[in-house]
């Protein structure tokens, strides 16, 4: 127990703990939407495209996260625009934005004079160096997402389940699709510091897969996902601290182990439903 008291006396550890709570909230909820709607690949595209913004931020001397936010929102819109208006197949459209963003990022990082010191922390995450300012942003995002999903729970559920039927019900489908795309982008960008561009997709899919073992209801899946995301992030954080290994990778590893355990338990005790 003493070791916990000692750990929580360090500011950086408290920050890391809070970051894992806030990351679990935003990723748990948004990830449930992403997984249910089968737009994981789009989210992967947005994530990697945001690297262009990070590189540009470095080059222009602005906050890389701001650049990343702009790039991810633009790529989210771009993917939809390319495939709906430009008649590009959706998966091709995703790949174009995905690689374009990465390419722009690499070029700008190369052009930036001197060495980009914490570039690695954007690629692989660094939960132990999350700043208080970033925590405030993550808190604001979590509150925004919780309120949005509470206010519009049924609308989001109905649109996600059957978009055509929602349109015949006169629900504002397009507007919600864009709003949710912006929330996805913001979630990705603000959680990049926790697990990094390369690994963020896991926070948006693995806790949800674990939750899906136990429930087939959208609302419950969000709650369980937040829980599993937090549990794995916190355990991963502790392991990475004591074993002195990279935090982002350890957190993901813990997510997968947790998924395997839950799946195994569910299988042996026949919890959860049969696959259709």
């Amino acid at each position, binding site marked *: 127990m003493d070791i916990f008291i000692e750990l929580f006396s360090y500011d950086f550890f408290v920050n890391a703990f809070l970051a894992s709570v806030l990351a679990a909230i935003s990723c748990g909820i948004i990830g*449930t939407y992403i997984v*249910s709607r*089968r737009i994981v690949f789009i989210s992967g595209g947005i994530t990697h495209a945001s690297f262009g913004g990070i590189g540009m931020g470095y080059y222009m001397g602005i906050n890389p996260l701001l650049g990343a936010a702009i790039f991810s929102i633009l790529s989210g819109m771009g993917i939809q625009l390319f495939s709906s208006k430009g*008649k590009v197949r959706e998966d091709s459209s995703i790949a174009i934005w995905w690689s374009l963003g990465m390419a722009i990022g690499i070029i700008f990082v190369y052009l930036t004079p001197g060495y980009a010191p914490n570039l690695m922390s954007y690629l692989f995450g660094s939960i132990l160096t999350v700043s208080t300012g970033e925590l405030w942003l993550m808190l604001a995002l979590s509150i925004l997402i919780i309120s949005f999903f*509470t*206010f*519009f*729970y*049924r*609308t989001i*559920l*109905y649109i*996600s*389940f*059957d978009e*055509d*039927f*929602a*349109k*015949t*019900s*006169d*629900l*504002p489908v397009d507007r919600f699709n864009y709003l949710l795309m912006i929330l996805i982008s913001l979630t990705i960008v603000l959680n990049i510091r926790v697990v990094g561009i390369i690994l963020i997709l896991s926070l948006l899919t693995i806790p949800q897969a674990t939750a*899906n073992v136990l*429930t*087939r*209801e*959208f609302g419950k*899946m969000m709650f369980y996902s937040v829980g599993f995301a937090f549990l794995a992030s916190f355990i991963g954080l502790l392991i990475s601290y004591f074993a002195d290994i990279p935090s982002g990778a350890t957190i993901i590893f813990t997510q997968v182990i947790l998924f395997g355990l839950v799946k195994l338990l569910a299988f042996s005790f026949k919890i959860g*439903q*049969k*696959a*259709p």
Partner: protein
Amino acid sequence: MKKLLEIKNLSAGYDNNIVLEDISMEVFAGDFIGVIGPNGGGKTTLIKTILGLIKPTSGELIMHTSKTNIGYLPQVNQIDKRFPISVFDVVRSGKAKTSIFSSFHKNTEEKEKAESLLDEMGILAIRHKSIGELSGGQMQRVFLCRALMNQPELLVLDEPSTYVDNNFEGELYLKLKELNEQMAIILISHDVGTISFFVKTIACVNRNLHYHPSNIITEEQLTSYNCPLQIITHGNIPHTVLKLHDEHEHHGHIH
């Protein structure tokens, strides 16, 4: 009879591919129209245009009823069967038109309505199951409940008999006949033999639309409507009343 909607010289399609060309049609209260035609002939495009999901490239669609007064049952294969949603929530989504803030209303009336519909269809017991756990017949019943949530004036069904067993198919059509006393129905089917027993009129869609003001249709007429369909029926569903061209004097039972 109240006119619900009219279609005037309408063309529609996807990109540069015209699926429907210069079609005209009217739907009145009390109608029970069977829409038949070959695959890719434009049956689904026709009802998606009526529902406002596809914008016509030319011509007019004039609605004399509100869009939300149309109940819609889509093709089952358009639905993601692994989506995490319960039967009860699917049915309740039929009443989503009330407001985007519906999460906050008490919705007692809505819940009661959903329960009574589920009860009527004999599937109240499975209301907490997720849709992925249902059989084909149960799923169609759930989507029928959803389509009826708003007490529609017009019910539009796209192939409701796919993935269901013959028993349920017969049951479904009898149910539709009963519902037809309260609302107009447009029913898409590739199985012209079965539906002609229940519908009042037939629309043949194959790029063009030919309206046939009776439920008795001969193969000759189908051919002249440019609607190449095989007239067959199977199973223990009520028999067809299709006329064969060489059996003009009596209704042939075709197997």
